[in-house]
């Protein structure tokens, strides 16, 4: 057992943390959020040069990382500064593309170099986080595919040059089988995008596909077998969001402790009031549990499917619950001032709460953890009975 990061990873984490804290002030973040695209291409290019994008991909894919703990340390550092640049969509789309074989190597290289923005357009209005629910259809017409449907709240859907879109080539709307993934350049006819800001300072879009005609080469992976690829990519995204949340929690925690120490009321620092102390102690304790949840998820990223997905759902559930707690308690412990735009704190709080609305919330992942557990038990019961060993009562 070993809880230390490798030397390389620690250096990357330190570098990125220092960079974010020195170069990515909250004022800069506000300015970037208000800019036309909602993120800075220039900034993105700098992150690429620092090697931060490459850290999300392994050597075979043209990066120099790509492990669970690489994703974790990068996103934790980004979370500390509420970085707006498209790390999440790049990870989501890039992870899938990188699994697609040689044909997509160039596209992945462009992502890593910061020259191209890609995103994943998967969720739909009625899916409410259910990964296998895809109503968007892709029908074969000769050598082409024709896609129709609507994708909801696609991160940077209007800014991305490449959209990775899930569509159904067969099966019922809720089947895991029959989902295919397509790579669509933003300029493709029939693609309509409605861009809007998000409440946590980001950008997303509704993406409408009106008879979008694509060559067969747009298909990523085998037809109808996109779900596994999707699940793996989304799993990496889940880990990333969880780690980002822990970074944001750490910042919110530091700000709140600082406030409790310096703010005086009734003649004393408010941090001397025992009721507030005990609540802060709870917050600290929960953040450590959240940190452990991320470690568990990162460690399980290469494990067999059920173990991996259970750890991911456990983490996202933990982060959803604890992130909301940290957001609400740190605003409350700040009092009125915690409600003001001017303070950095509430922007961390908003991001923490909104992370629960990305890639599945607390309830979704708790239910999923239960379902995966039942599947696991059923499987091990079969195994045990085959081996002739019973579970002791």
């Amino acid at each position, binding site marked *: 057992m070993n809880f230390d990061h490798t030397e390389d990873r620690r250096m990357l984490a330190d570098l990125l943390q220092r960079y974010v804290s020195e170069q990515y002030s909250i004022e800069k973040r506000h300015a970037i959020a208000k800019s036309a695209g909602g993120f800075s291409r220039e900034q993105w290019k700098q992150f690429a040069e620092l090697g931060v994008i490459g850290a999300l991909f392994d050597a075979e894919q043209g990066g120099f990382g790509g492990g669970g703990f690489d994703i974790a340390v990068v996103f934790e550092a980004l979370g500390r500064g509420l970085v707006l640049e498209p790390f999440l969509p790049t990870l989501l789309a890039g992870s899938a593309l990188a699994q697609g074989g040689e044909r997509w190597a160039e596209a992945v290289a462009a992502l890593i170099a910061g020259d191209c923005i890609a995103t994943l357009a998967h*969720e739909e*209005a*009625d*899916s*409410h*986080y*259910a990964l296998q*629910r895809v109503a968007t259809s892709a029908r074969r017409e000769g050598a082409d595919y024709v896609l129709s449907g609507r994708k*909801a*709240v696609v991160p940077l859907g209007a800014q991305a040059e490449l959209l990775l879109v899930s569509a159904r080539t067969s099966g019922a*709307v*809720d089947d895991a089988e029959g989902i295919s993934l397509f790579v669509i350049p933003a300029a493709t006819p029939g693609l309509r995008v*409605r861009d*809007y*800001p*998000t*409440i*946590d300072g*980001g950008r*997303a879009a*509704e993406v409408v596909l009106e008879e979008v005609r694509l060559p067969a080469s747009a298909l990523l992976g085998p037809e109808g077998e996109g779900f596994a690829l999707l699940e793996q990519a989304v799993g990496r995204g889940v880990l990333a969001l969880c780690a980002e949340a822990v970074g944001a929690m750490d910042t919110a925690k530091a700000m709140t402790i600082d406030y409790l120490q310096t*703010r*005086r*009321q*009734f003649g004393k620092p408010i941090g001397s*009031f025992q*009721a*507030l102390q005990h609540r802060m102690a709870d917050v600290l304790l929960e953040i450590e549990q959240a940190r452990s949840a991320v470690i568990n998820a990162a460690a399980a990223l290469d494990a067999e499917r059920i173990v991996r997905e259970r750890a991911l759902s456990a983490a996202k559930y933990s982060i959803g619950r604890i992130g*909301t707690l940290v957001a*609400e308690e740190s*605003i*409350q412990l700040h*009092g*009125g001032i*915690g*409600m*003001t*735009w*001017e303070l950095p704190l*509430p*922007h961390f*709080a*908003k991001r923490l*709460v*909104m992370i629960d*609305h*990305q890639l599945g*919330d607390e*309830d*979704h992942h*708790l*239910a999923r953890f239960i379902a995966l557990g039942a599947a696991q038990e059923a499987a091990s019961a079969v195994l045990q009975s085959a081996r002739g060993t019973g579970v002791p009562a």
Partner: protein
Amino acid sequence: MDLTFTPEEQAFRAEVQRFLANEVPARLTAKVRGGQRLTKADLEEWHALLNARGWLANHWPKEYGGPGWNAVQKFIFEHDCALAYAPRTVPFGLNMLGPVLIKYGNEAQKRYWLPRILDGADWWCQGYSEPGAGSDLASVKTTAVRQGEHYVVNGQKTWTTLGQHANMMFALVRTDREAKAQEGISFLLIDMDSPGVEVRPIITLDGEHEVNEVFLTDVKVPVENLVGGENKGWTCAKYLLTYERTNIAGVGFSVAAMERLKAVASRVRKNGRPLAQDPLFAARMAKVEIDLENMKTTNLRVIAAVAGGGVPGAESSMLKIRGTEIRQELNSLIRRAMGPYALPFIDEALDEGYDGERVGPAEASFAALQYFNNRKLSIFGGSNEIQKNIISKMILGL
């Protein structure tokens, strides 16, 4: 014991509901329902409508223009207004200054200011909080020095809700710097158009401009604007704070939010079924529904005790704490029900007449916003922590 309304109470309720159904402009209820911003004109329109009916100052005695309602009637009115998505009234003149003037104002003050609250001639704001004081109201630093027939006021007020619309402010000021804490404070009425008054917006975490800072620099206030006597302002302040508010639990708002939540959860779908049938979400909904059902009765019990001559003390703190927790939980659940659609934030959609493309369910335009905005409920008006201090002080006697 009987939880049902008497025939008289039922008749009253029917009258209120008729008024709400027939006389409130659909334009206004649509804005409230849609979570859109209410303008100054909207709020003035609503005040005028209520005033025409004699229902505006429903906490005031009849002789000053109140309708003479008892506690149950006030509860019914506020409850049904919320359910009908009627706008809120602006409380600063009606519920705060009004009762103070009625109790501590002199005849001239009552005769001049009270009718102007009713007819909307004045828009009042509150000058209580100061930067760095928070819940410690008695640490007033703004000073008022008497110079002939005027006080000269210097200092800064903050969290002044809707101060950008106000032409008048009631304020706590320090008139005796030697006196300790609560002594030496006076209650002054300040004309916001006086030279030296500057209002600066505070933008809240949701990007909205609802509260303000008010800077007061050598502001001259006529001595006849002093209420309750020099250095006696703390008496007015306390009265204002403990003034019985039937609506402190916000039960009406919660009942309306609960209805809204149920409607949303039946409409939004997860795994092909209404979210209301998702076991975890259903449990969350049922828990808050039960808590609210209990709170309705707790609230009515406190009202009944007050009507029977009791004084709400720690009880009103309980109502404040649990009432705001329930409202916040309901806001949370509506936000949760949006799924990924809690994220979009389309500012223009909050203004009247927006005809752009809607994104997500109808509530998506305001669900997250209201959730964040209503974090204030447990902070403002005496934070829930202060309310717990009050409860333990009154019960533990320590």
